[in-house]
């Protein structure tokens, strides 16, 4: 009987330890990937069956609820702007000189034919706020040791019911991510590469997003320039900035 009780408490302790470890890992990932503000210039490379396109944009983000993007190239996209405030998303089109607010299921539509939805682009809450986590193993990815974390949504409005992420054990950067629907179906897969130390933090500068329900090579997101914790003028996060 003593042995059974001992084993029982050992398991409970081990589980608690694992949960605690997973939460700590996730907190460190959040700290590493999130900042007070960020300004990012990036290329989005969209691979189609006929051709590929590169869309260049500059994005401003403050906290988890404010972001603003302006598309710089190609010519067709130039001047298109997006503003996210809380749960609202506005898109400005210079060709029609109109600002359209997207809501509800419209947010599930693809952004510029990429493998990313507006919802994906808007989601920047911390992982620890949205998911319970558990370490389920360790794996080697591109020569780097990673913890494999299983995340299960603890909030009802999470875009994906569960996630599996592979976190670099030294740099606390996710190197791979798989996003699942409630049914357990794999919806999206992300590979994060070319991790560089920028402003004292490790950050992936090339990401490949793959919508598993679509054919093709997915969408590459390449960070060209990034600044963390730079002051951003308040007017950037206003609807007036869209038409400027």
């Amino acid at each position, binding site marked *: 009987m003593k042995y059974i009780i001992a084993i029982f408490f050992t398991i409970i302790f081990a589980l608690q330890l694992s949960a605690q470890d997973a939460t700590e890992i996730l907190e460190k990932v959040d700290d590493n990937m999130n900042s007070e503000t960020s300004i990012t210039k990036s290329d989005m490379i969209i691979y189609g069956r*006929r051709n590929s396109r590169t869309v260049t944009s500059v994005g401003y983000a403050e906290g988890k609820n404010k972001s603003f993007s302006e598309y710089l190239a190609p010519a067709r996209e130039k001047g298109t702007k997006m503003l996210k405030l809380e749960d609202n998303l506005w898109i400005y089109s210079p060709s029609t000189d109109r600002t359209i607010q997207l809501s509800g299921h419209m947010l599930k539509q693809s952004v510029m034919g990429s493998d990313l939805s507006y919802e994906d682009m808007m989601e920047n809450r911390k992982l620890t706020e949205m998911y319970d986590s558990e370490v389920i193993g360790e794996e080697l990815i591109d020569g780097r040791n990673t913890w494999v974390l299983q995340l299960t949504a603890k909030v009802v409005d999470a875009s994906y019911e569960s996630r599996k992420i592979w976190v670099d054990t030294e740099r606390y950067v996710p190197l791979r991510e798989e996003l699942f629907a409630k049914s357990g179906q794999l919806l999206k897969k992300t590979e994060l590469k070319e991790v560089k130390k920028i402003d004292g933090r490790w950050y992936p500068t090339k990401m490949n997003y793959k919508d598993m329900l679509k054919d093709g090579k997915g969408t590459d997101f390449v960070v060209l320039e990034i600044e963390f914790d730079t002051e951003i003028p308040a007017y950037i996060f206003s609807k007036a900035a869209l038409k400027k």
Partner: protein
Amino acid sequence: MIRFIFKAILRDKNRSVLPVTVVAIGVFLTIALSGYLSGMLGDMIDQTARFQTGHVKVMSRAYAENIDQMPNDLALMDIEALHEELNRDFPNYTWVNRINFGGIIDAPNENEQSKGQGAAMGMAIELFSKTSGETERLNLENSLVDGRLPQKSGEVLIGYEFAEKLGAKVGDELTFMGSTMYGSMAFASFEISGTVRFGVMAMDKGTVIIDFSDAQRILDMEDATGEIMGFRKEEVFMQDEVIEMRENFNAKYANDSDEFAPIMKTLGEQNSMGSYLDLVDSVSAMFVIIFVLVMSIVLWNTGLIGGLRRYQEFGIRLALGEEKGHIYRTMIFEAVIIGIIGSVIGTALGIIVTLLMQKYGIDISGMMKDATMMMPSTLRSKFSPQLLYIGFIPGLFAMVIGNMLSGIGIYKRETATLFKELEV
């Protein structure tokens, strides 16, 4: 002889009223139901052909594989040359371009804010072409609820329920947001020229129609189209002909390994229409067979009752020396005349009801408030020359067969026992 029988039928109402009524009801039901079924099923086929499949459709192979996703990034290119080829090889068909596209329609208020928004099923057709026949084919002029058809670039037709949902009316501006053929963002402003009732709930709630040239411009589809639809110039679907066309056309590209090479599909190969076409063919045949079987049994029974009622009459006629064969033949003649009278009455009633149902139909829109399936909101019958004989012939045969079966009893009567029977 016929005159004699005819007089007998008219004078002895008991001999004629019940069988005539039974035949007339049977023939009427056959015609009315057959007309209703072919109307309903045919409507769905016509509707599908006009809006979705054409009698044949040419697409790129890659597009055909993913057709449910409206994949305009896989559209057909160099369509001018393809049109020349189609017109040369199949001159009996009208070839029209169509682009189906999805996106968001936003209706702004006076402050340029969104007052309504919804996901749109866009359909680009050759509205401005004088030869495409698209406005007549889709019956757009008669479907207008308000306004007029688009006459210039930048005008749009919109499903009337969609317009209501957006809070928009004729003359209002709408903004479209979607993706170009190459995946870029597509924005465009349109003015509502008219609202239409397609008679299909799914379309009334979310369809917008623009001219093909507008769609080419907005979606970056120069010399490209999603689909080229072929309609027989007489607008009648000919299954055997389109199968031959498909085989000839596809054979030309059989050795082309390009995934964007054109492929032709017939109506029967799209939208699971093949099994539907088979169903339509077999339903009428099934009706006739069931009718003949059921009516034969009913009329056999009617004939038997008549035979029993006329047992004494036949006995007297036999006793007077009339031949059994003669009695049997007169009975069959009677059955033919009664069958003809009943079938004429039934056919006339059936045709009248079918024509009325064809003109006015049954409005089931109230039952389809939330339907997303593409089916007409008014159920109509369809008159076809086939209806003139589809009930008449079985009605006549059933009556005759019924009487032939029941009349066999005449031959079983023994002359020796007749007087004894008649005394009873």
